[in-house]
């Protein structure tokens, strides 16, 4: 196969191992909470759990495919054309994901609207292609993409959980809050998205600071 011929020798596989890449993507370097990437979908599609999870699935498909493909062709990349190649690879996979959604989950595809094609400009994917895909082998790129997808799932899931429960009293459409508790309709509207994400970012910062303090105390 043509792709196998351009594969560089194993010596290039330096840097973090697959397991390290996988774990870093979930919490320590969570793409949304720690790196502030991919804010647009995190705010836009998190009014309820179902669209949020569909979005995560579509993004994960594109992220994994693009990262592995970029890793396979990394020997061919020219430095100045690299970003263009990433973008075109991503745009191709996004078109596939968009067509698949429209074919099998049509109501969801309508509900997500332009936010599915907007996966093309999701900075998480370009960042992963740049940091991992263009430098390491396909196995590590795959682990890296899966870890970051899980991190993205964690972020979107937590924001959507807060917004759906407070805003509509449901989770995945199932009622969880008793009728007597008033619904905060503003949480499913645009301001609620900023509010929920802002407070969750603050919470993430606070937890990280506390963990760092404890680690310091154990050492000292």
């Amino acid at each position: 196969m043509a792709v196998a011929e351009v594969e560089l020798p194993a010596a290039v596989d330096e840097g973090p191992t697959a397991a390290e890449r996988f774990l870093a993507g979930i919490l320590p370097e969570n793409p949304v909470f720690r790196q502030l990437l991919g804010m647009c979908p995190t705010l836009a599609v998190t009014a309820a759990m179902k669209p949020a999870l569909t979005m995560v699935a579509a993004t994960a498909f594109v992220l994994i495919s693009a990262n592995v493909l970029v890793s396979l062709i990394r020997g061919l990349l020219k430095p100045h054309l690299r970003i263009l190649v990433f973008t075109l690879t991503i745009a191709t996979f996004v078109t596939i994901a968009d067509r698949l959604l429209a074919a099998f989950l049509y109501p969801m595809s309508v509900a997500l609207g332009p936010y599915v094609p907007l996966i093309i400009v999701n900075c998480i994917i370009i960042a992963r292609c740049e940091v991992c895909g263009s430098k390491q082998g396909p196995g590590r790129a795959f682990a890296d993409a899966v870890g970051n997808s899980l991190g993205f799932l964690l972020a979107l899931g937590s924001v959507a959980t807060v917004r759906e429960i407070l805003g509509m009293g449901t989770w995945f459409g199932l009622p969880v809050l008793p009728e007597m508790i008033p619904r905060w309709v503003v949480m499913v509207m645009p301001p609620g998205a900023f509010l929920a994400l802002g407070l969750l970012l603050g919470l993430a910062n606070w937890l990280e600071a506390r963990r760092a303090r404890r680690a310091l105390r154990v050492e000292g």
Partner: protein
Amino acid sequence: MELFADLLLIAVGAALINNFVLSYFVGICPFLGVSRKIDTALGMGLAVTFVITVAGFLSWTLTEFVLRPGAPLASAVWRMLGGEGGADLSVLSYIAYIFVIAASVQFVEMYVKKFFPPLYKSFGVFLPLITTNCAILFACLLIMKEVVGGNWGLAESLTLPIFGGLGFTLAIVLMAGIRVELDLADVPKPLRGAPIAMLTAAILALAFLGFTGMGASLKQALTPAAAEPPAAVAAVEVQR
């Protein structure tokens, strides 16, 4: 008059009622990244407005003549190659738009570098990042949807990006004004930086939510005929 009313509705809708940043959440990166000083924010907003207008014009041209089902240019080529009926290249639209956007950003970058060097320096890395600014792709996608649906011509397709861009400028300048003041405030430590900016944006979005009712009343004021819709139209409205 009809066209003017339509354009005014699109303009107010794009700039205020459905503000790109505060209601559609596109363009959050520069909204948080370049909103520390008012003049930089204004420059960024105007650069985005310019790029979005160029990209909107190009995307209308592409959609109308090449990409939409049965587009004249694509169909002509298709028939020349011996195909039958009209061609439908809409599956290529995302790739085509990304190309168009990257090209217009390159163009703006060269222009700003040549004629406004201080502005170019203050933008830093954010100017090339306009390529991955979702606001621009978002405007292209909205235009594509309406053009393919046969609702919009060139005038509408230019109004949306211009006023969407101005709405973005308004939001980012307001945000910068607030953040300048916020530097003097004593913010709890975990909330410093991005979280407090998000909370500020939440209050700003709440304020912009106040424009929601404006669309319907403006429509009524502009088109007196629409105030009393014919019985058939009213019935359809009720069914929805």
